[in-house]
């Protein structure tokens, strides 16, 4: 077990493409850190650099306080779980799991003992003498995990280990991974493009975008105080709604209606205005759960913005409902968000007016195609600078 420190690590490919740009991240001993981001954001490259499978162009990588930039993977004492599992097809499960120990020339009894122990933990005892081809997807995934844990390495690196499993198994294995990491207490770096996995598994999450680390924090921090519009849009499902807004006469004018800023928001706006004089327009972000059906009893007295819309689509999930509606006032064209939409394949779906999703209580009696009055908790709004994409509430770091 060890800590891992990335100190201004950069990866530039020979063709000049920048895969990872000046990434600094320090992972404490025993911590479970997630690297998350859309495809091509450099998260796998970062992991490969920690593993030693890719060279570091500049910067320093330290494992356990020792600079390992030029160490071969075999000298770093880390284990890796691959997305494809990369099981050796010609070896039995037993030999697959014991391969690293066999290479290290450990005595046979020790290898057998450790392999059997790991097999017991992962419920693979019955399959030890099978070949990977005879196993199901979930079993192969567990063998891949087993291969990592038998070695008791300094750290686990996991490269989207669950993305090849079907949805149900993935959720099951997610808790399994979490339990295993708690039990072993081994430093773990986990790469995923799935924000749900990131939020549920990690002690801390680092959101990457085009090779840069956007924000590092606990899941709660990322959700509650996203530093940039990209993080805000990436974390959370359904994702945050963004609408354009202007500041006029001390009011925040949004397509939902005019909002009188509260103290926190006023302080932020004042601070921001002094920075970029003359700019009066910004982007307002609202999480779906900060809307509610205004007709519901508990909403009657609460302060907040009330506005009426026509609900286009209503999805009833039982526990709550999602109401989709569009707002006049144009679409917020934000490069950061378009990248996300590209990644999700929804880039052509939303066009013209802005679509907003609100999560309502299941008791709501709003119906599709009808006018409804919604309530918005204005204290929870996030304010973003449209040029830099930064949250006005984010601590200014250079």
């Amino acid at each position, binding site marked *: 077990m060890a800590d891992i420190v990335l100190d201004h690590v950069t990866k530039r490919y020979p063709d000049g493409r920048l895969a990872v740009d000046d990434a600094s991240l320090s992972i404490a001993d025993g911590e479970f850190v997630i690297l998350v981001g859309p495809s091509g954001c450099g998260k796998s490259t970062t992991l490969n650099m920690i593993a*030693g499978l890719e060279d570091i162009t500049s910067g320093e990588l330290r494992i356990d306080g020792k600079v390992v930039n030029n160490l071969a993977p075999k000298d770093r004492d880390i284990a890796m779980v691959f997305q*494809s599992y990369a099981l050796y097809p010609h070896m039995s499960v037993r030999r697959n799991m014991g391969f690293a120990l066999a290479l290290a020339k450990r005595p046979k009894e020790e290898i057998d003992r450790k392999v059997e122990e790991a097999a017991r933990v992962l419920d693979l005892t019955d399959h030890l003498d099978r070949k990977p081809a005879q*196993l199901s997807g979930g079993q192969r995934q567990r063998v891949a995990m087993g291969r990592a844990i038998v070695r008791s390495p300094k750290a686990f*690196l996991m490269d989207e280990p669950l993305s090849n499993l079907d949805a149900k198994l993935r959720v099951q294995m997610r808790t399994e991974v979490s339990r295993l990491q708690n039990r072993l207490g081994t430093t773990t770096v986990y790469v995923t493009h799935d924000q749900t996995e990131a939020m549920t598994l990690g002690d801390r999450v680092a959101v990457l975008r085009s090779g840069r680390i956007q924000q590092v924090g606990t899941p709660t921090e990322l959700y509650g105080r996203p530093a940039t519009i990209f993080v805000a849009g990436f974390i959370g499902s359904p994702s945050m709604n963004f609408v354009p807004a202007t500041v006029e006469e001390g009011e925040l004018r949004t397509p939902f209606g005019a909002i009188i800023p509260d103290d926190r928001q006023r302080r932020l706006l004042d601070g921001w205005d002094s920075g970029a004089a003359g700019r009066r327009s910004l982007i307002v972000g609202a999480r779906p759960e900060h809307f509610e059906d205004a007709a519901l009893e508990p909403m009657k007295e609460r302060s907040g913005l009330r506005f009426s819309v026509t609900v286009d689509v209503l999805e009833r999930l039982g526990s709550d409902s999602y109401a989709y509606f569009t707002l006049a006032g144009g679409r917020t064209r934000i490069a950061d968000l378009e990248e996300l939409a590209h990644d999700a394949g929804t880039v052509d779906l939303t066009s013209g007016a802005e679509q907003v999703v609100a999560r309502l209580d299941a008791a709501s009696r709003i119906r599709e195609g009808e006018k409804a009055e919604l309530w918005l908790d204005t204290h929870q709004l996030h304010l973003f600078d449209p040029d830099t994409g930064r949250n006005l509430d984010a601590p200014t770091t250079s």
Partner: protein
Amino acid sequence: MATIASVPAAGTAAPARGRRPSGERTALLGWSAANLVIIGVSLVPLLWLVSLSFKTPASITDGSFIPKKWTLENYRGIFGESLFTRALLNSLGIALISTVLAVVLGSMAAYAIARLTFPGKGLLVGLALLIAMFPQISLVSPMFNLWRQIGIFDTWIGLIIPYLTFSLPLAIYTLSAFFREIPWDLEKAAQVDGATPLQAFLRVIAPLAAPGMVTTAILVFIFCWNDFLFAISLTSTERSRTVPAAIAFFTGASQFAQPIGSIAAAAVVITIPIIIFVLLFQRRIVAGLTSGAVKG
């Protein structure tokens, strides 16, 4: 493969799915007929050769397909002569050494070509192909002179070198295709598991590429075993003369007798190792060993 696969389809699945069974049956018949014709055309000369090898010298030219009088005299004759037995030994030795060297060197080169990007890679592959295309006959005279100058004329090594030259491009091509099929993740996994590049190659990559290596070995072996041009040009004595060359030196019992029976017997004998080789390894060639490596 095509016939085997289509038999159950025509019998069970096709009528159930309501496809045109009659069309499939016609296609099946057509394919079977075509296959039979091809098998016949390729087997008749071979059977003729076998038949000749069992005929007595007097009945060689009687034109009957099945010998009227069977004799093992031809076989006894060739094994009684050191011209043939020594040549058989030479053939085996030279072909085996060339095959092993070609597979070992070819694997390394093919692995590098499949995995690494290095300057001049395209040129190297192109050159290898060029060598394979080169007319061998144009090299024979210069080699003959050169080999005599440097003293490897009429030696095993004198034949192994040209065999390697012409079989390596083939080996590199076949093997790099196999190496490309092996997921790169396996090698990364081996590295992370603590393997040196050599260990990763020997313990993970090579066993998976075994079908490819066997295929290559068979092809190279057949090439070396069958070669006549270099064997006749670069040898002069029993010291290194291989069977195809030695057959040309067969003489009949008397000055005027044709050695056809002996030639046929020798030809049958040297065909046997090839058949054994292919039969032994054909399952291995076909078997896809990489199944189960990655999800799929």
